[in-house]
């Protein structure tokens, strides 16, 4: 603990932290945006034929004899369709502190639609994200000779002849681009750092992070405070960074329908104690499946 206090001795007590952790929040946001571009552009998964049921072979469809012009039936149904994506922003210890300070998800995703012109490298990286996601099938289906499954572009992709494939590949390039996305957000906090330790690191922001700060120079909105956001906080009752009384008080204040706190008996900050990791994993798994 002395290390942290020593390192941030200058920041603590000044009442403002214009720099602490701010860059890290933006780094976190950058990764969220890049990965969102990637995941939104991934084509649907492709099932190797041997593992799927025979009745699921590609049905006879208009695509086998594509209509005149560039109109392809498979694309038609997707116009105006809203696709869903779930986004989990989380972290362990300091990572959960930064995660909790990220802006609301709609604000984050604005960077995907309109990357800041001041950083062309980021905009280019987003293009790469989309392109490499779309090419997933090209790079990972070379050993597969045929496909089956429900009717979708991925299945059709393999079933069609060479020339038709080409047309479809062109379509795939546009996958995800013009779609509307409904993104729901949730937050996973493992052994979060509560004040005072969080304020050594983040100043007022570190107080504000958990809804514990009253008034602050920094009133930016946090995604974790959004009405629809689900939160899971898992902590040990033997945490050396944040005392159990602090955790319990916090949990009492925050817990609700969407906010769940789990206290793991016998667990420290590092989850080294016998059997506690299994509890942590079990709790997280149950929550991320729900």
């Amino acid at each position, binding site marked *: 603990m002395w290390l942290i206090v020593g390192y941030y001795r200058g920041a603590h007590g000044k009442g403002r932290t214009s720099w602490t952790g701010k860059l890290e929040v933006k780094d976190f946001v950058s990764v969220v945006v890049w990965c969102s571009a990637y995941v939104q552009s991934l084509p649907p998964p492709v*099932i190797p034929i041997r593992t799927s049921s025979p009745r699921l072979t590609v049905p006879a469809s208009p695509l086998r004899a594509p209509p005149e012009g560039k109109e392809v039936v498979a694309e038609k149904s997707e116009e105006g369709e809203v696709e869903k994506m779930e986004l989990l922003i*989380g972290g*362990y210890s300091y*990572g959960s502190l930064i995660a909790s300070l990220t802006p609301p998800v709609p604000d984050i995703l604005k960077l995907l639609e309109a990357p800041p012109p001041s950083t062309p490298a980021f905009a*280019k990286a987003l*293009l790469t994200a989309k392109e490499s996601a779309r090419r997933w099938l090209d790079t990972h289906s070379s050993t597969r000779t045929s496909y089956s499954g429900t009717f979708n572009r991925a299945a059709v992709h393999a079933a069609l002849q060479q020339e038709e494939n080409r047309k479809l590949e062109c379509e795939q390039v546009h996958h995800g681009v013009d779609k509307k996305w409904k993104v729901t957000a949730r937050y996973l906090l493992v052994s979060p750092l509560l004040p005072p330790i969080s304020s050594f*690191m983040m100043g007022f922001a570190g107080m504000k992070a958990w809804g514990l700060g009253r008034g602050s120079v920094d009133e930016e909105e946090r995604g974790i405070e959004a009405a629809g956001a689900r939160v899971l906080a898992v902590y040990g009752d033997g945490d050396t960074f944040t005392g159990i009384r602090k955790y319990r008080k916090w949990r009492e204040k925050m817990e609700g329908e969407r906010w769940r706190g789990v206290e793991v008996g016998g667990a420290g900050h590092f989850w080294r104690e016998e059997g506690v990791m299994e509890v942590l994993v079990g709790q997280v798994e149950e929550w991320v499946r729900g």
Partner: protein
Amino acid sequence: MISLSVPCNLRPQTHFHLQPNLTNTTPIQRKNITHDTVPRPEIYDIEPLQSIPPTPSYPSTHTHGKSTIMPTPSLNLQIPSYLDAHLLDARVYLPPSYTAPVTQHWDRKLAIIGHPYAPLGGSYDDHIVLEVVKTLLRAGWVVSTFNFRYDLEKQKENKDTLDERG
């Protein structure tokens, strides 16, 4: 899991057309060149990323002698920060439900997990971060981890700023 390395530090290459850039060709230059030598648009392609050196680990990297099976990232890459293009080492893990699906139904679920405090040795190699990654992968999430920016120069800079203020 098959691994594909995709960097974001893009470099001009030859076949993959993402963003043409002809601004470096003045009209006069264009007049003097034949069709064959017209500069090709600046293009970007995927190139293998040089391996990222291992990062020190948080003190919690402690497994009680149990062998920990590390998940394999599908992508190892560097993502530029939108703020200043600072390159962040990142990993993207694709879940078995995507790479080896048994059903074509696939929910798009993306998780990004932040690591513990870098000055204390935290990184995306952290044991607990990796446990969370494995858990999410089992539940069908695409997971990304990355290293927060942290270097001694930066640390010094911050200290200097504080000293000036103080």
